[in-house]
């Protein structure tokens, strides 16, 4: 309906290879970014703090996991721990080099996660599928153990938790209690947009193709000259980098403080759900999955209030858990390929409109 593609033809490969070759998509993306920029103007602090910020952070983590699982076909259950590596290393960097800007620390902390990710990615050369998932699970437990047992990581705090110091960017506080939600939101938005752009660049180039080749048919990939070691480890590295940055952002710009529970296996599963519900192998899916998994509980909790029911908190919690569980199952039955696929179908329908098929 909205798609009017007649007359949009490409006379060179540059235009043909663009991520959004259709004008309407570019307009749509532009609108979304404008809306995202306007959120703090119209939205409440509650919306920003409880939804927008965590949504963006988890979308970033989902992109990380999606690169590994959706694009490279390597199942991982260690996302939470890799996020933790990012968070702890950022904490250490911030305390060791307090004069360096915190944003640089956040971006650097991803590299520590990437390194750790590579190490735990090594078994992927020999084992696949569920077996690999179990080794990443081992990584999760091992790293959790490290976060507790190596007090150096949390500077020997009594609480065992890491706490975020106040830091500024151009004089404006961006971390710590004084940082306003609006400022934190804009910083995160900028980082997430930038990193998503980088992810999309990687995916559509040679490196991304080599990941997908490994995912789809590893023997054929080898015949095309792909070295499995390089492809898989690069996927682990990039994936962990994204998770690491997401972890650092989560602690520094959202939670403000964290202990080992913040990076537990539950987080791994949460991100995995986001990827599955959003759609394997789709960047847009990561955002949709994160919005759904993160937004749904909030919505379910807020709904009775909005409709004027008074319910005690624990009932709401129980109901919301049940509803979310049921919704996830229902959704996966209806559309096992996730929101991304659903969106693709809708888009296809709109492009073919008014005809039922193309």
């Amino acid at each position: 309906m909205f798609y009017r593609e007649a007359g949009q033809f490409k006379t060179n490969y540059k235009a043909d290879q663009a991520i959004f070759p259709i004008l309407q998509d570019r307009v749509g993306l532009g609108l979304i970014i404008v809306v995202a920029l306007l959120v703090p103007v119209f939205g409440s602090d509650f919306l920003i703090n409880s939804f927008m910020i965590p949504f963006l952070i988890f979308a970033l983590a989902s992109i990380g996991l999606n690169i590994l699982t959706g694009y490279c076909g390597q199942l991982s259950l260690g996302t939470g721990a890799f996020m933790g590596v990012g968070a702890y290393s950022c904490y250490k960097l911030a305390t060791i080099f307090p004069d360096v800007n915190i944003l640089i620390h956040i971006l650097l902390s991803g590299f520590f996660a990437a390194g750790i990710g590579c190490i735990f990615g090594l078994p992927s050369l020999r084992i696949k599928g569920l077996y690999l998932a179990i080794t990443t699970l081992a990584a999760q437990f091992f790293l959790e153990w490290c976060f507790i047992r190596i007090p150096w990581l949390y500077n020997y705090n009594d609480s065992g938790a890491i706490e975020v110091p106040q830091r500024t960017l151009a004089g404006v506080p961006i971390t710590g209690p004084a940082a306003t939600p609006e400022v934190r939101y804009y910083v995160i938005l900028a980082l997430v947009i930038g990193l998503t752009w980088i992810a999309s660049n990687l995916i559509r180039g040679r490196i991304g193709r080599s990941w997908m080749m490994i995912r789809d048919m590893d023997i054929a990939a080898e015949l095309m000259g792909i070295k499995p070691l390089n492809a898989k480890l690069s996927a682990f590295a990039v994936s962990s980098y994204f998770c690491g940055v997401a972890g650092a952002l989560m602690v520094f710009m959202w939670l403000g403080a964290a202990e080992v529970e913040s990076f537990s296996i539950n987080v791994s599963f949460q991100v995995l759900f986001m990827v599955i519900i959003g759609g394997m192998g789709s960047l847009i899916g990561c955002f949709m999955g994160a919005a759904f998994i993160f937004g749904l509980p909030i919505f379910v909790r807020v709904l009775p209030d909005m409709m004027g029911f008074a319910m005690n908190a624990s009932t709401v919690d129980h109901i919301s858990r049940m509803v979310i569980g049921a919704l996830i199952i229902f959704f996966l039955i209806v559309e096992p390929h996730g929101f991304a696929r659903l969106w693709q179908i809708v888009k296809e329908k709109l492009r073919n409109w008014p005809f039922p098929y193309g």
Partner: protein
Amino acid sequence: MNPAFAGFIFSIQFPIVESIMSTAEEIAPAETILEVNNIEVIYDHVILVLKGVSLTVPRGGIVAILGANGAGKTTTLKAISNLLGAERGDVTKGNILFKGEEIQSLSPNDLVRRGCIQVMEGRHCFGHLTVEENLLTGAFTRKDGSAAIKEDLEMVYNYFPRLRERKASLAGYTSGGEQQMCAIGRALMSKPDMILLDEPSMGLAPQLVEEIFEIVKKLNSNEGVSFLLAEQNTNIALRYATYGYILESGRVVLDGEGAALRENEDVKEFYLGVGGEGRKSFRDVKHYKRRKRWLA
């Protein structure tokens, strides 16, 4: 101007003819075992694969569906055996009758119980089971006791002596031809009245292809099993089939007795590779295509 045609073209009203085909009249005479009426299949809600395919298999017949890749042969078989769901396909129009009963709502399993079984393309043997174990899985739906099953196993081995030789080998390690035999043998173990056979000759050596078709013929004449087979190898299929349908782009474009089809000029030209002076050389293929004249 034109009062009779004043109705704007949008409202194309096709005449509603009074004698709308009553299915009661159409119910096949006793000798028809399978009847496919006008089925349309859509994949993924958007891709139209079959457009009104109809065909009939007489009891005790060997019927071949021929045509290019992507013409819809496999889809037709899967529509019959109800295996489309797994590929997000739907039969959106038409109906399918097996022994006079509508079978669209039956599961593949129920269908096997009613005597119709499909042997899939690419054979799909259980690679980690032995040949004999594979065959026995075929008897899974039967309730007539182990003695009868034993007897049938013997029968299968008689038809496929090669399988007897290799009965203890893991199916995964047998050759393509043996796997094909194993798959057919496994189907036989369910004591079917009808077997849907998808590409039996695919990837097999010429000698084996002959062998398998000979067995199909024997099973057909000795055991009375009806066959509906989808086949690329038009040459051999038309030698063994009593009747053939040629599918193109999801439509039946030509049908007829096997022998008649073999004589059809277009079939000769486009499917048998026989030109005016015998077989054409593959070296002489041109870079342009002659149009098919099916529809004329």
